[in-house]
């Protein structure tokens, strides 16, 4: 009916329809329904539709296609960078120490804290931070 069936399915249905009165009736009804639907008159818009549209568009804020397209292209990487920066900021935490403001990752903090617990070393957090930072400086 819609001319969209694959050949095998179409063949199968045609075979079935030859021997099934109920399905033949249904198909006939659907075809009539489609004929009525496709014959519905199109909407008759106002003859001034396009003139009105033009006036409408002139009142819209200036749409600079090229600039907007560039903006759209830049928007994704900018948002990506912002998200990355925020993620970094939240995954690192800082602490004011005698050596200044030190940053360390939460993962490093956990490892060091676990080691301290195992060894039962009574280091303060600031001292641990200094150790972590100096360890990093050693790597560099």
């Amino acid at each position, binding site marked *: 009916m*819609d001319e*969209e069936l694959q050949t095998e399915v179409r063949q199968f249905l045609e075979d079935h329809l030859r021997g099934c009165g109920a399905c033949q009736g*249904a198909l006939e*009804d*659907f*075809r*009539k*329904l*489609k*004929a*009525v*639907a*496709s*014959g*519905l*008159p*199109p*909407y008759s*818009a*106002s003859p001034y*539709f*396009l003139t*009105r*549209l*033009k006036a*409408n*568009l002139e009142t*819209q804020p200036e*749409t*600079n*296609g*090229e600039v*907007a*397209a560039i903006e*759209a292209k830049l928007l994704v990487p900018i948002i990506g960078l912002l998200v990355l920066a925020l993620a970094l900021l939240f995954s690192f935490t800082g602490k004011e120490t005698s050596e200044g403001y030190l940053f360390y990752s939460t993962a490093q903090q956990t490892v060091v804290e676990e080691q301290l617990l195992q060894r039962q070393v009574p280091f303060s957090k600031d001292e641990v931070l200094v150790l972590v930072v100096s360890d990093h400086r050693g790597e560099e």
Partner: protein
Amino acid sequence: MEEDARLVRRFVGGDHGAFDELAKRHYQRICNILHHTLGRSADIDDLAQEVLVKAYQALPHYRGEAAFSTWIFRIAVNVCLDELRQQKRRRIFSFSRVKEPEEGQLELEEKLPGGRRPDSEMEQKEVAEFLQKVMKKLPEKNRIVFTLRDIEGFSYSEIAGILQCSIGTVKSRLFYARVKLRQYLRPYLDESEIQE
């Protein structure tokens, strides 16, 4: 005739006149989709203007993943759905208590014209009007698919692109719509000799 894609490129490049040509090309179908989906309860001219203004504003962000026609008809369908939602809301807050007919059940005044069985005297126009009336009984998703396929003649894949769903979904929604409409129009379909 210049391709839609080329007109879009011209528009994006700063030639705003290209949009006039795009609008001229597609506005009739946009109006038809709105009209057949929403019926007479909406101001189709206003809504079609809204569709085209939205398209104009969004066109610089159109990435060309779908054909321009698919993209703009998608905007039309979204405007349809918004309007249907607003109509529902207006009905809820309305003071008049309108009884919603059960699905599959027609109100007396919505029976075939004159309360008679359809016969050869019945004009095709009357049946067409009756069909438009009973289409309102369909759930909106089915009504939209029926409009796009059986009235506007889009292919399954075009409809799937417009509605952003699978072809299987299109088929099942269309089948449901046809079955329901067949029930409503059965007396007419049984008697008439519609030319296919």
